């Protein structure tokens, strides 16, 4: 990972090539290939258990933490296969951040939640600079106004929606390029959900976002591209169709996509 392919003409942020993922002997994902465009929001949709989270987690090697998990294929990020033997997952995760389904702030202060990532990653700077980094990350997650007076309070004292935005701010602080979000709004009320969606639109200018969602409206109104996954006869997840959100929702090529989108499926 010493040299990156900093070729801005390449509009793909990250690309999966023939990814198959196994849990023990069970093949959960079968030969998925898709290229995610830079500075765009890509939504993964599909019925429960079809491997959306599994694919998403393979993008920053979170699957390595499941002892039984095994992958085949490549994830290409900046011209480098993330599963090459010399790649350290620790660095991958710093470049490709993640926001989880259930908000999981550390039981530390709001400030410490944000400072954690930079600190472990060898960040160097003054106290004032850290203050600024914290503020900038919180602003980036549209949380600054809510919490600016209580930075020393526990992250757990926030509301569910605020906690999730704190987790996003935390992910921003390590200055990633890609942010993976696994159903970030599934535990939130409609207002908080809307806030997060607005936030995603803002973030899109600087980050590439991949989001898993069960909410069709969310996928259709908040994403640029949509990938539809489905289980095959052996219960392995496959990519059925991938295109612009506009096309997937209004002009699906595959019959199964159409059925799923119109709610006649799964």
């Amino acid at each position, binding site marked *: *990972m010493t040299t990156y392919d900093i070729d801005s003409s390449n509009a793909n942020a990250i690309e999966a090539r023939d990814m198959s993922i196994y849990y023990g002997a069970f093949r959960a994902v079968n030969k998925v290939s898709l290229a995610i465009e830079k500075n765009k929001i890509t939504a993964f949709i599909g019925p429960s258990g079809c491997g959306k989270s599994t694919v998403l987690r393979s993008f920053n090697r979170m699957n390595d933490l499941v002892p039984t998990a095994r992958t085949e294929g490549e994830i290409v990020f900046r011209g480098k296969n993330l599963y090459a033997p010399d790649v350290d997952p620790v660095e991958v995760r710093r470049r490709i951040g993640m926001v989880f389904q259930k908000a999981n702030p550390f039981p530390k202060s709001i400030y410490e939640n944000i400072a954690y990532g930079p600190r472990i990653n060898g*960040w160097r700077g003054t106290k004032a600079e850290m203050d600024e980094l914290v503020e900038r990350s919180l602003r980036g997650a549209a949380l600054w106004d809510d919490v600016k007076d209580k930075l020393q309070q526990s992250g757990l004292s926030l509301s569910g929606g605020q906690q999730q935005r704190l987790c996003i701010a935390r992910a921003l602080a*390590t*200055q990633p390029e890609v942010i993976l979000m696994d159903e970030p709004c599934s535990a939130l009320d409609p207002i908080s959900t809307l806030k997060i969606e607005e936030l995603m639109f803002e973030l899109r200018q600087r980050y590439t976002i991949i989001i898993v969602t069960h909410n069709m409206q969310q996928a259709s109104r908040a994403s640029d591209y949509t990938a539809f996954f489905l289980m095959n006869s052996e219960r392995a997840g496959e990519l059925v169709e991938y295109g612009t959100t506009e096309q997937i929702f209004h002009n699906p090529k595959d019959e199964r996509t159409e059925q799923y989108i119109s709610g006649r499926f799964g």
Partner: protein
Amino acid sequence: MSAESINPEERSVGVLPEGPAVKQNIARRQLIGQIWRGIFFFAIVFGLVALLTLILDVVNDSFGLIATQSEVDEQEITGGRELEDLSQAELVAILNENLSRRVLTRLNREQPLEERDAANLVEVIETEVLKTELVAVFPLWESLTQRAAIEERVTERFPRAELSWKAWVNWDFITTPMSSVAFNAGVRTAILGTLWVTMLTALIAIPVGIFAAIYLEEYADHRVWYNKIIQTNINNLAGVPSIIYGMLGLAIFVRVLEPFTSGAFFGVSSGGGATLNGRTILSAAFTMALLILPVIIITGQEAIRAVPNSLRQGSYGLGATKWQTVWNIVLPQAFPSILTGIILAVSRAVGETAPLILVGASTFIVTDPNGPFSKFTVLPIQIYTWTQQPEQEFKIIAAAAIVVLLIVMLFLNATAVLLRNYFRSKRVSV
């Protein structure tokens, strides 16, 4: 981060490592991680090595070479033959020849010589005629690795001594009673004492413990103040040091309830003493029962709590009463786990020493305990008193007694595992 995604108006705040610095940074962190992983793993190795050392130390002390020396040469009195080869009549003859009238009368009073078997006679000849004495003991490791040095030392200091192998843990050790001579001492009395105390303890503590657990889990309303008190109280009792239970036993069972625990109330005289004495198996068992009750109750509660509610509802749905549900549905389901807790508690009672020092286990006793009102000793107490002796040979028989104790506990725990598996396999899975 690459230049393209930094907004040019924004001043960078601090620096995250980039380029080659990233590799360095991560390599350093991973190295530190590996080192600490090694340190954490070492802690586990330390624990296991400690366990191994402890076992080896005990085994090392309970086998090895011994040097014995006799006042009279065996060959002299037997005419060159081995004692073991002589007939019973010949042995009696040797005794009659070599012992004074006074000693013979005493021996005959204990049991007429003619009625004794050969083995017993050989033993009597060894102690009374040959006066065989243990002069040195060597642990196993030393015996194996430094045999030559040992031989040299022994012949130098005790010219007439004989060197031989001895396994201190043997059938004789288990079946002979206590003796003030380490060489002849055994743990028979202590094993019987341990069995008596443990059985009585279990008899008292198990039903009470299970019933209390049932009450707390199935009947008690935990919002009511007295049930809260009972629960908190049990949790606190589990943390009271065992020696304090000993003080309770001493003050209540040994002294206040002396008429009962000594057996006088029931017309049983306790262990030959002229005065009343509450220092009996019964007192010990009551003390131990109180000690292990909290353990049984707490593990029992956990076991009962783990029974799914759907089973209870199924039973109530068929019109069963509460007790019918508890007895027929909940208890069988929870039984394997309850059993595990019980065995855990009972093996604690087997190994517990401190309370019995207070309750007054005898340190020297040769008669077998014959009932709840007997005086008694137990294995741990025996180990304690022997370890305290300054002489090496007592330390060695302490080690032998430890081997016996550990085997007893291993046996108990193995039974527990087998029983639990048996009941688990019979239980209908939910």
